């Protein structure tokens, strides 16, 4: 790909230009001054302690690059900024016989892992090798950055690929091999935003070697964030709060960045899982599940089962699942989904973030009513699905809240909300010793029993009737399961399928799991993983926060009016914005697409981020997709916009607008016809197993 407008910028010159422009506008720059720590009072930045004295301030931005981690730790209340440096080498040569022109294109050879560009008539060439050398793990004082050694042996593979790509360069004379460490983050995305623990403490660091290209935009968003309280785009993927202290171990960072740096030039296949820094947080059932063939993915340090490889499956074939096409787990997940639909499956979902909010009086209810859009003043034992919205009505979090008693609530949110949600609640909760917020994530193991026979399994284990009359949907009860008492059973499954979530105090986890599995045997119970869950929920048109929903999407835009109680009798955050949206209409609409002419076996699969076309016009991108095993079609979820044909301005999207369009989803340049739906359609298609198809193997226990 040749980009004619491509340009080369000198970072030093840009920095100088910015600095002098800032000085002209009255900014004071202190040269050769080092920060000792940031001063904080009552959770708010008050100033900076430097080796030349104190400087008062309300805002502090930690842009210390590879030292950002150390600087964050230097505070009395440390701010964890998980990033780590790796040595990075690039080569400078003397000018070519006829010096290269300044318009020589910059070349990236991802296969060779190198980049090449003009440098003063010669070339500058570096790369991102497979075996990076992490550095400064023990902190700054280890080695001065100026004294870093050139390492030619380490550079050899990159030099070889340079000469393989351009053999003519052989005669160029070496000027220098520069060792200039770059900073990487645990997920190859930069880190920005406000600290969850210290107000006014902002961070912008960990640019993964793309600081110069991203600097401008990142700076803008950060400035907006500081001025308005939020940036103009959803930047959750870059938010400091996606990490917690748990990603801040030096050993973890050192190992993880060794995997991240080579990724820069690797082909990034869908459903990528990091191999390093794993098995940090696990459920007590980890070993049991692992022994039964679980394959794992990691979210926020927590190991979650993807699917279970049956004992008779060829394991070697499975290791090559890196594909954009139909993956090799297709049949495995199919049988898990089928079991969820026809019998019962158990999924370990312990990674969910779990908070308890209790108070002596009505404080808990009052604050939750203010923070959440749905009405939480429900009878004890009811569960409410609700969004935690921002001023703009957008989702800061999407949770399920069970009212355990008049004065206590149990809140379940996505795994990676542990830091963000906590910070958000803390920000709004009054300083009141009678109102207690507790993170109980680690206290409970969560088992999701999905399927029509879940009722039978549970009633057999509890000697209690579990039918809808006794245990209606979205209901929560503490009951005994097996020998274990005090298990929180909730009639919901996060998938739209019938079943129950069991929140089990961890010491009972193994017992309850064993009981469920042994009693469940006669109902055909088996383990399932998150891939099956994903297929089920997407088929049922369930939006997930972090994938489909973000801080800029409102409940009205995704058909969740029923989860917003504008007239619950008190104000809540985002109410005004939603009222206005209700009046004016929405500018985008969450829609389900069912691919029609897509060949699952032969065509490239949709993963997410595919463009959506309505009557040939681009209207948005998909946010998630999965194969719907009941529909026997691919299902994509995404937001449809209505861009004015003349001005490109966003216009109101009505149900009519959605229904009247002809849709296509573009997968890697090939457009597939798609049916748009605003409501789930699964029930219409329900697939009945034909009598003739039953085999003896269906009688085998799983």
């Amino acid at each position, binding site marked *: 790909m040749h980009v004619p407008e491509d340009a080369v910028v000198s970072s030093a010159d840009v920095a100088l230009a910015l600095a002098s422009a800032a000085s002209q506008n009255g900014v004071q720059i202190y040269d050769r001054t080092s920060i000792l720590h940031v001063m904080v009072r009552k959770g708010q930045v008050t100033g900076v302690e430097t080796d030349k004295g104190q400087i008062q301030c309300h805002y502090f931005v930690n842009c210390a690059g590879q030292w950002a981690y150390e600087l964050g730790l230097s505070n009395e209340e440390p701010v964890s900024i998980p990033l780590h440096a790796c040595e990075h080498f690039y080569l400078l040569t003397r000018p070519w016989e006829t010096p290269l022109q300044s318009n020589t294109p910059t070349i990236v050879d991802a296969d060779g892992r190198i980049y090449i560009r003009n440098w003063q008539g010669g070339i500058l060439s570096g790369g991102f090798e497979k075996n990076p050398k992490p550095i400064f793990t023990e902190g700054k004082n280890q080695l001065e950055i100026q004294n870093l050694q050139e390492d030619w042996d380490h550079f050899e593979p990159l*030099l070889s690929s340079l*000469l393989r790509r351009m053999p003519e360069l052989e005669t160029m004379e070496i000027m220098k091999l520069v060792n200039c460490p770059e900073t990487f983050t645990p997920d190859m995305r930069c880190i920005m935003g406000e600290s969850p623990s210290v107000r006014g403490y902002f961070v912008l660091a960990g640019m993964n070697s793309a600081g110069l290209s991203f600097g401008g935009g990142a700076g803008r968003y950060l400035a907006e964030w500081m001025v308005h309280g939020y940036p103009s785009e959803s930047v959750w993927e870059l938010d400091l709060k996606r990490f917690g202290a748990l990603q801040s171990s030096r050993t973890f960072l050192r190992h993880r960045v060794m995997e991240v740096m080579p990724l820069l030039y690797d082909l990034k296949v869908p459903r990528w899982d990091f191999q390093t820094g794993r098995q940090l947080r696990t459920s007590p059932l980890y070993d049991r599940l692992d022994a039964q063939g679980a394959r794992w993915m990691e979210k926020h340090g927590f190991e979650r089962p993807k699917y279970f490889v049956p004992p008779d499956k060829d394991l070697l074939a499975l290791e090559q699942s890196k594909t954009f096409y139909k993956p090799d787990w297709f049949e495995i997940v199919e049988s898990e989904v089928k079991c969820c639909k026809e019998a019962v499956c158990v999924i370990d979902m312990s990674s969910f973030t779990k908070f308890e909010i209790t108070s002596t009086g009505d404080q808990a209810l009052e604050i939750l009513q203010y923070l959440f859009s749905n009405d939480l003043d429900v009878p004890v034992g009811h569960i409410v699905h609700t969004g935690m919205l921002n001023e703009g009505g957008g989702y800061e979090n999407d949770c399920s809240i069970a009212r355990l008693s008049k004065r206590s609530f149990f809140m379940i949110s996505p795994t990676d909300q542990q830091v963000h949600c906590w910070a958000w609640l803390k920000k709004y909760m009054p300083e009141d010793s009678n109102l207690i917020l507790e993170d109980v994530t680690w206290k409970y193991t969560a088992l999701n029993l999905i399927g029509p026979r879940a009722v039978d399994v549970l009633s057999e284990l509890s000697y209690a009737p579990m039918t809808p009359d006794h245990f209606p949907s979205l209901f929560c009860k503490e009951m005994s399961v097996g020998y274990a008492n005090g298990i929180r059973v909730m009639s919901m499954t996060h998938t739209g399928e019938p079943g129950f979530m069991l929140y089990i105090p961890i010491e009972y986890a193994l017992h309850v799991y064993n009981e469920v599995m042994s009693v469940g045997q006669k109902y055909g119970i088996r383990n399932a993983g998150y891939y099956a869950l994903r297929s089920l929920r997407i088929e049922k048109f369930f939006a997930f926060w972090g994938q489909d929903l973000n801080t800029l999407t409102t409940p009205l835009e995704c058909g969740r009016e029923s989860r917003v109680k504008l007239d619950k009798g008190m104000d809540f955050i985002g109410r005004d914005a939603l009222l206005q949206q209700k009046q004016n209409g929405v500018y985008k609409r969450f829609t389900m697409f069912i691919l029609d002419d897509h060949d699952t076996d032969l065509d490239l699969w949709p993963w997410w981020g595919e463009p959506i076309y309505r009557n040939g016009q681009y209207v948005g991108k998909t946010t998630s997709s999965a194969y719907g095993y009941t529909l026997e079609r691919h299902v994509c979820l995404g937001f449809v916009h209505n861009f004015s044909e003349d001005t490109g301005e966003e216009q109101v999207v009505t149900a009519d607008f959605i229904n009247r369009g002809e849709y296509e989803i573009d997968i890697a340049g090939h457009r597939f016809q798609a049916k748009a739906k605003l409501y789930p359609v699964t029930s219409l298609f329900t697939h009945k197993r034909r009598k003739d198809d039953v085999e003896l193997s269906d009688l085998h226990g799983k």
Partner: protein
Amino acid sequence: MPAPTQLFFPLIRHCELSRIYGTACYCHHRHLCCSPPYIPQSRLRYTPHPAYATFYRPKESWWQYTQGRRYASTPQKFYLTPPQVNSILKANEYSFKVPEFDGKNVSSVLGFDSNQLPANAPIEDRRSAATCLQTRGMLLGVFDGHAGCACSQAVSERLFYYIAVSLLPHETLLEIENAVESGRALLPILQWHKHPNDYFSKEASKLYFNSLRTYWQELIDLNTGESTEIDVKEALVNAFKRLDNDISLEAQVGDPNSFLNYLVLRVAFSGATACVAHVDGVDLHVANTGDSRAMLGVQEEDGSWSAVTLSNDHNAQNEREVERLKLEHPKNEAKSVVKQDRLLGLLMPFRAFGDVKFKWSIDLQKRVIESGPDQLNDNEYTKFIPPNYYTPPYLTAEPEVTYHRLRPQDKFLVLATDGLWETMHRQDVVRIVGEYLTGMHHQQPIAVGGYKVTLGQMHGLLTERRAKMSSVFEDQNAATHLIRHAVGNNEFGAVDHERLSKMLSLPEELARMYRDDITIIVVQFNSHVVGAYQNQES
């Protein structure tokens, strides 16, 4: 002689041939007992008396065998592929890393690599490694068995317990004894680090325990009450001697269980040398009995490697040993006690466990054999009394203990049986391990600094440097790497795959003629910890 050898073994390269031929001639002249077909037996530990040569199972003589081979072998030899070679070399490899918590490592030992390559079938070498749980320190040892593997197996299972018990303070011994007495759970003494192929004999476990218990009971009784600092050197010597004594006693007393009875006799009538290292902080003790060897790898300031020997071989090449033997026996035996470089003309190592044939009186030997099981009675070898056997014992298991205080430049210790040392010079051993362990770093880093170098020249230089390293990367285990060199080195000291392949595809019956069992343990030290110890004390 030379002609057929060359014909039938085209696989032997010139250097190897001359070496073998050299040995052959040497043997031929010195050992009248050796008929030509038995050439390689001079490389065996025992030279059997002609009458009892059957013990060495010449079911088919070597001569016949090679004759047969002439027709069987075709000019196109089959070679093992590199992966096949690797799977043979790596079959017995084992690595242990001392667990490191939170980046803080308090042990002066980083870990060890070990491996062994059989020449005998079954292999007669053994190895052991364990961490002392009730005292500090780690024990590592190689054991070279002869006349079977029974003795080396027993020593590999038992010796470390004897050492560990000898090192235990009085209170701990009491606690353990009380626990046994009152049926409580015992304190664990050793944490073993074993390859799955390194086994323990289940049947003898009870017997061995009882002997060990008797030992610590005696230690408890001997205690005078004053808590004295335990001397590691003394503990090692006592443990060696005590175990050998127990082996001897168990064979004399016998066991009602016929299987065990036969086992203890086999243990006593076979033999084993032992080379054991005890590392505790900066204190390194090496206790050696026999001709295995402990070699320290020292990195000089310029990065080069030098070898420091921490043990003395107990064989005819060691003048002090010859002298000792002569002094221990009457003057008139001076000529017979060491003959043809062997003890009584038979045994190569001058110190060993077991081998009661060189320790017991003739009466005792006869009595035990006669009352022993039939298998023993039928065995010509056990019945055979060494010639010139007048003043036993001729052999001892008492070790020579060397102490070395570790310094930061002491990077590793190689313990290996003579199978390694007879094929490689100690300096080469240390250099190969040192370069392996330090990886790339041994090569001076390249700096362009002021010279006119083109990309092409630099590339050539780097490719060459990498080629040198590639053989290192094949192995994840320093001991495997060393065996690869020991077996596969050509005349230029580089691993030659063809040669390696040939050496490893020798049939079981022939392998012993080209090499001995090789067992290697490479212990790596943590220079930071060693340095920290030094600073603390200075």
